[in-house]
């Protein structure tokens, strides 16, 4: 018997942790149909041979002979064999079921129309009042519900006590205490969930309204009963939505003019009587019910809120200290990622990759594979993909650090601090995180822009993210710094990064004026408690990112590498090219070179490098090396660079161009996906490239005028 469970709850309620615990690695990430909202589904870890412990993981023990055997004699937690696979659908984190955001609409439609067998409502037990607001709405949707009170470990350590039975009685649904991060209570959650799903237990009738509101609600429910039932909607749910002025529901019910008029009368007179408008009445009613229920079910430790959390917060968001602390944090992140530690990891990993390529190359030779195929595979594909892969450690380290900051709750504070400055650009504090990630790699940064509330904010943020100079450009900067500014590495690097940030501000202001008029969506955000990130969660996120990166490397970049290899190995007559200069790539580059002349680098080598940089920014370095006939890390290379770029000024303008022009294809693909439109993505990269050219040209020409270089 196949079941589908929906997982619903607030953001920051530990929903992701619970989802991971329940599904393990059996996850699939996609999108909800037609929208760029992430959808995760997974299979609940199911039993093997009818015996299992915590969520279906068999237990292995060493027998007397020292042999590992599967424990077959488990007496604990037996889940009956009739429970076969369960699909769990992770709904977006939401605070309510209003009609105003995509996430809320998706969630309510999924539950009401697709009718999962069960809704598991995860509730942050350290934050009951606001979490239960969603719960009350979920109970009206006509599907079985089980409430999972999460973070009970924190509740206990704080000394609070929750009467679960009383809560069950008050809500009319099972309430299970769990701690997702510790893995506590999950067996019971699964057991009771299966039970409720199997018996299709609907929530008990819950009447939360009093007085005039009560009368009005039921009067409206009665009026819309027929239309609602005909559309398979619970009358009470429909009436509640009408109470809230929910336009989609009004449209869906398709009521007669007369009925709508009567309903309006009822609601207006209730508003007058209550002294509040209708949506406020409904919200107020819910919160009153919750307050009363909590008074009866919860005993709080009179010592009050978490002192440690407040004290940490006192420093991190201190009026004076906050910004310095923030800058230190960010510098630390970059130092770890790009500094000695990061470089060491990259070198080690690149060594591995290069070694692997060598092995493959040798194997191919031994197997007598044709030379041109070997060339294609080793020099073309492997080296190309390998150079991108070699960059993976940097992304992962950066991502690890940013994940830790996010899971600990600090990122929310950073967004809080950044809201004011970002507002000047027409963005809000939330844009901060994607932009931060852009310093690592544009691709995950662009993807994290999903957390923005509106399409406009998302697109705007995505357009500015590539200005945050990504990690792949670091080798380029490093090489040029060594060749042209050997005594001032730090200054040059910092200057380049600052330039990127400055340009993003300029671009932001322009975009705000001419493209994204007006302000960003309101910045109303929960500040979650500070928590220690779980290694397991962070580990899983890194793993997901790594998988995603590798997948991209082996598809998009693989393809791109093939194309570039092809273009550089053959002439337009499709004969083998003796040198890159003869090849198609060389011809194209030669054709383009004059375009870069005003910017000071109008030679074939530079324009070839620029072209290959479209595939992956690391290619710029390798192309320049190949073209100049030197090994990348050699002294010869530096000298060759100086002959390709005769003046320091032309090197500077080239660097600026590389800093600003379009990002790699992988980023372009991500843009197209997240912006939802090829047109937007195209104009974004076209605009960036144009800007890059303008800046490079202005700097070069200006420099010439000033007599430098």
């Amino acid at each position, binding site marked *: 018997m196949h079941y589908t469970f929906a997982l619903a709850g607030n953001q920051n309620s530990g929903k992701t942790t619970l989802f991971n615990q329940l599904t393990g690695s059996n996850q699939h990430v996609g999108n909800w149909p037609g929208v760029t909202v992430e959808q995760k589904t997974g299979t609940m870890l199911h039993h093997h041979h009818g015996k299992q412990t915590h969520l279906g993981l068999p237990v292995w023990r060493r027998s007397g002979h020292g042999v590992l055997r599967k424990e077959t004699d488990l007496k604990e937690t037996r889940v009956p064999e009739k429970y076969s696979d369960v699909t769990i659908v992770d709904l977006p984190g939401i605070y309510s079921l209003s009609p105003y955001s995509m996430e809320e609409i998706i969630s309510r439609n999924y539950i009401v129309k697709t009718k999962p067998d069960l809704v598991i409502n995860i509730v942050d037990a350290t*934050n009951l009042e606001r979490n239960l607001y969603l719960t009350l709405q979920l109970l009206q949707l006509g599907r079985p519900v089980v409430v999972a009170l999460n973070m009970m470990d924190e509740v206990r350590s704080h000394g609070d006590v929750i009467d679960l039975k009383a809560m069950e009685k008050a809500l009319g649904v099972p309430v299970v205490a769990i701690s997702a991060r510790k893995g506590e209570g999950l067996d019971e959650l699964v057991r009771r969930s299966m039970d409720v799903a199997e018996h299709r237990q609907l929530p008990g009738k819950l009447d939360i309204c009093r007085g005039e509101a009560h009368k009005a609600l039921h009067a409206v429910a009665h009026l819309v009963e027929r239309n609602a039932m005909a559309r398979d909607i619970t009358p009470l749910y429909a009436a509640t939505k009408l109470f809230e002025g929910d336009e989609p529901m009004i449209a869906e019910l398709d009521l007669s003019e007369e009925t709508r008029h009567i309903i309006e009368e009822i609601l207006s007179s209730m508003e007058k009587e209550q002294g509040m408008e209708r949506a406020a009445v409904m919200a*107020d009613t819910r919160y009153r019910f919750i307050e009363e229920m909590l008074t009866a079910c919860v005993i709080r430790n009179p010592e009050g809120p978490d002192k440690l959390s407040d004290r940490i917060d006192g420093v991190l968001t201190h009026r004076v200290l906050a910004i310095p602390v923030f800058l230190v944090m960010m510098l630390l992140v970059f130092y770890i990622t790009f500094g000695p530690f990061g470089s060491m990891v990259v070198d080690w990993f690149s060594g591995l990759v290069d070694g692997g390529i060598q092995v493959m190359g040798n194997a191919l030779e031994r197997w007598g594979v044709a030379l041109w195929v070997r060339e294609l595979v080793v020099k073309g594909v492997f080296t190309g993909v390998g150079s991108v892969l070699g960059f993976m450690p940097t992304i992962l380290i950066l991502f690890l650090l940013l994940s830790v900051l996010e899971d600990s709750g600090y990122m929310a504070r950073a967004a809080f601090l950044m809201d004011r400055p970002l507002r000047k650009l027409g963005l809000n504090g939330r844009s901060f995180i994607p932009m931060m990630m852009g310093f690592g790699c544009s691709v995950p940064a662009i993807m994290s822009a999903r957390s923005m509330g509106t399409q406009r904010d998302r697109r705007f943020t995505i357009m500015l993210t590539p200005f945050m100079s990504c990690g792949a450009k670091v080798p380029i900067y490093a090489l040029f710094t060594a060749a042209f500014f050997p005594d001032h590495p730090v200054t040059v690097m910092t200057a380049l990064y600052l330039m990127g940030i400055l340009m993003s501000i300029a671009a932001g202001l322009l975009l705000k004026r001419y493209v994204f008029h007006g302000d960003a969506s309101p910045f109303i955000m929960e500040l979650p408690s500070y928590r220690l990130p779980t290694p397991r969660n962070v580990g899983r996120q890194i793993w997901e990112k790594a998988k995603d990166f590798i997948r991209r490397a082996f598809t998009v970049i693989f393809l791109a590498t093939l194309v570039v290899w092809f273009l550089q190995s053959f002439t337009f007559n499709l004969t083998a090219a003796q040198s890159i200069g003869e090849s198609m790539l060389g011809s194209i580059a030669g054709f383009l070179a004059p375009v870069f002349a005003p910017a000071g680098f109008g030679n074939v080598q530079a324009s070839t490098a620029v072209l290959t940089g479209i595939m992956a920014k690391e290619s710029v370095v390798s192309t320049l090396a190949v073209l100049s006939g030197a090994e990348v890390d050699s002294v010869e290379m530096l000298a060759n660079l100086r002959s390709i770029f005769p003046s320091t000024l032309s090197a500077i303008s080239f660097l600026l161009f590389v800093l600003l022009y379009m990002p790699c294809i992988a980023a372009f693909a991500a843009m197209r996906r997240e912006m939802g439109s090829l047109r937007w993505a195209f104009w974004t990269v076209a605009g960036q490239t144009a800007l890059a050219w303008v800046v490079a040209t202005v700097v070069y020409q200006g420099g010439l005028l000033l007599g430098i270089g």
Partner: protein
Amino acid sequence: MTHENQQLRTLADLKPGERGIVAQVGGEGALHRHLLDMGITPGVSILLQKTAPMGDPLELHLRGYALTLRVDDARKIVLRGDDEDVEDPGYATPNAHPQGLPH
């Protein structure tokens, strides 16, 4: 109802450390609904914990959690005018279950 908002106290008028009780929630459409959903309803007690370094946005504590809100939006939330010493509502009194909880 008077429309002279200058004379009405709003959430934006609180000083860090001060509490207020909401009288009326303004804003329109999605914003209005979102404010309500996040627990800013008539009658709720809200504490202004602190502001960001430049005074905007605000960090509010209500219903046991922390919420950020811009000053512009805070101005849309009118407070009850005459509550001087608003107390922390707290939750259950220790006497809710004198015999301890049933098992």
